[in-house]
């Protein structure tokens, strides 16, 4: 393909992405060094926003909580996703039905799913889960106002939302495992456990890594679900980094745009650090192909 043709075909998309992604991103980096409000030119203050963010205990809490959520959800998603996908792989005619039912949680707007999810445990909405727990144990769980019950709720919701994706990816991986490999393992006398452990899981390692990566990325920027599921997030220590940015830089006319931008830049660095192994792999691959 000639160079001119290539440029012509790429131009519209490039223009949109530079104008609406790169320019705003540069703006955020600029703002992070400024004391600034919407619509006014900022004043350069060096690294003050960064030192303010890093010394704010609320930022530390948000980072720790977000990392906790990420780790727990990622592990749960991989284990549950693998189990469900293995079951699905052996499923015949029922597969489209089960798949369809599961995909709903993934395809629906996350915030709407979270609202529906919250009603299962909301006393004001009949709270069927509370009712069952009370009937079984006599305990009343404060899902929205106590730290750990609220964390369990948030973890459950995030797993619920992301499980379909992980299951689907792993299922696609499982379908690529050659039948000969399973048969060979069986002939060699492998039990179900050893077959999974030493044959199937190593074969689909790539897919598992990818699911891991996407889950980490998605959970690190958790925001939507906290609005309905954790209305007092800050007070009970369950605030995510994104919610913290929202509070500082936008909600209720709050205008600490410089501070919010500094936190954004810091979280970009955090995300890049988490993605680093994967990025390195891709760059290596690119070099090999070039």
């Amino acid at each position, binding site marked *: 393909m000639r160079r001119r043709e290539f440029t012509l075909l790429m131009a519209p998309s490039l223009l949109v992405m530079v104008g609406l992604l790169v320019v705003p*991103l540069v*703006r955020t980096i600029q703002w992070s060094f400024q004391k600034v409000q*919407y619509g006014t030119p900022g004043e350069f203050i060096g690294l003050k926003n960064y030192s303010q963010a890093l010394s704010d205990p609320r930022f530390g809490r948000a980072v720790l909580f977000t990392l906790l959520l990420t780790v727990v959800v990622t592990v749960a998603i991989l284990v549950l996703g693998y189990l469900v996908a293995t079951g699905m792989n052996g499923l015949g005619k029922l597969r489209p039905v089960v798949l369809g*039912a599961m995909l*709903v949680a993934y395809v629906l*707007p996350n915030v709407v799913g979270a609202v529906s999810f919250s009603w299962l445990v909301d006393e004001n*909405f009949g709270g069927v889960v509370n009712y069952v727990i009370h009937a079984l144990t006599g305990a009343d769980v404060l899902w929205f106002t106590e730290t750990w019950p609220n964390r369990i709720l948030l973890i459950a919701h995030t797993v619920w939302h992301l499980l379909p994706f992980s299951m689907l990816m792993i299922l696609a991986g499982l379908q690529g495992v050659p039948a000969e490999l399973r048969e060979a393992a069986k002939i060699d006398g492998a039990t179900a456990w050893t077959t999974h452990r030493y044959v199937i899981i190593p074969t689909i390692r790539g897919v598992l890594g990818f699911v891991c990566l996407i889950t980490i990325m998605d959970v690190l920027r958790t925001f939507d679900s906290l609005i309905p599921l954790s209305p007092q997030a800050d007070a009970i220590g369950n605030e995510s980094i994104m919610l913290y940015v929202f509070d500082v830089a936008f909600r209720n006319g709050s205008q600490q745009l410089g501070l919010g931008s500094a936190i954004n830049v810091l979280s970009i660095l955090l995300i890049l650090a988490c993605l680093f192994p994967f*990025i390195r792999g891709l760059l290596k691959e690119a070099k090999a*192909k070039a």
Partner: protein
Amino acid sequence: MIADTAKASTLPPRTSVKKPRRRRRNRGSRTAAVLLLLTSVLMLAPFIWTALSVTKPTDVAFANPPVLSGYTPTLQAFRDLWETTYFAQYLTNTLVVAVMSTVVALVIGIPAAYALSRSPGYVSAILLLLALVFRSLPRFSVVLPMYEISKALGIYDTTFALAAALVAINQPFTIWLLRNFFAEIPKELDEAAMIDGCTRVGMLYRVMIPLMRPGILTAGIFVFLFAFQEYLTALVLTDTSSKTVPVFITTQLGQTLPMLQQAGAAAMLLTLPVIAISFIAQKYLVAGLSEGSVKG
């Protein structure tokens, strides 16, 4: 084929071994099927509960312990939603934004994806990298500046601004997904068409796009869903006149009980088409998820 015949010739008397194994397998897969059906009911539980709650009369809908029978189902919450709120407008906004961004994303994304699919291998690795990095970016780092820019341009709180923002945010993924579909069409076809006198662009529209129909449909469904799902961007870039349904639903929370029930009705109205999509367009969802991510 070779593997098949080889297997057949090396496994002579199969019947005697096969029977018990199949029976055991059947029992195992039946248990698995029951467990999976239970899992899918669990996955749908929030919606089932919401559906029950919004069709109860308001006085029992919020009763604790929950009332499970002995009431007459009613659609009053839906009627109220339609009559006392601007739901119709919010729904229109959501659909307008989703359709606009889908059309624009495809019109500008198809040529780019095609160009990338015909360039050397390392370009695609870099593209995947960019798509991933932009996907993982904290939304606020682009959306807050967009807020300021849209105010400066006087397009804040318009469906246009929101659609433009969503096109940009999702474009790396859209291009990546489309590229993978284009990559499956052999290059020889381009050359044949161009020898027959097509220009590159003419060939793209006359030959490639008809061939790409499933791929384009898949990408279109995903862009549409992304726009339809978006909460954060809509929260920041809209106010009253172009508010979308997800934002509306959250503003109803913490208000009066009837308003809560209307929010539930709105959530139900949003869920039903999505359920339909995940059954009817399942093939495309599955294709999009696997093409869009695993293959490189």
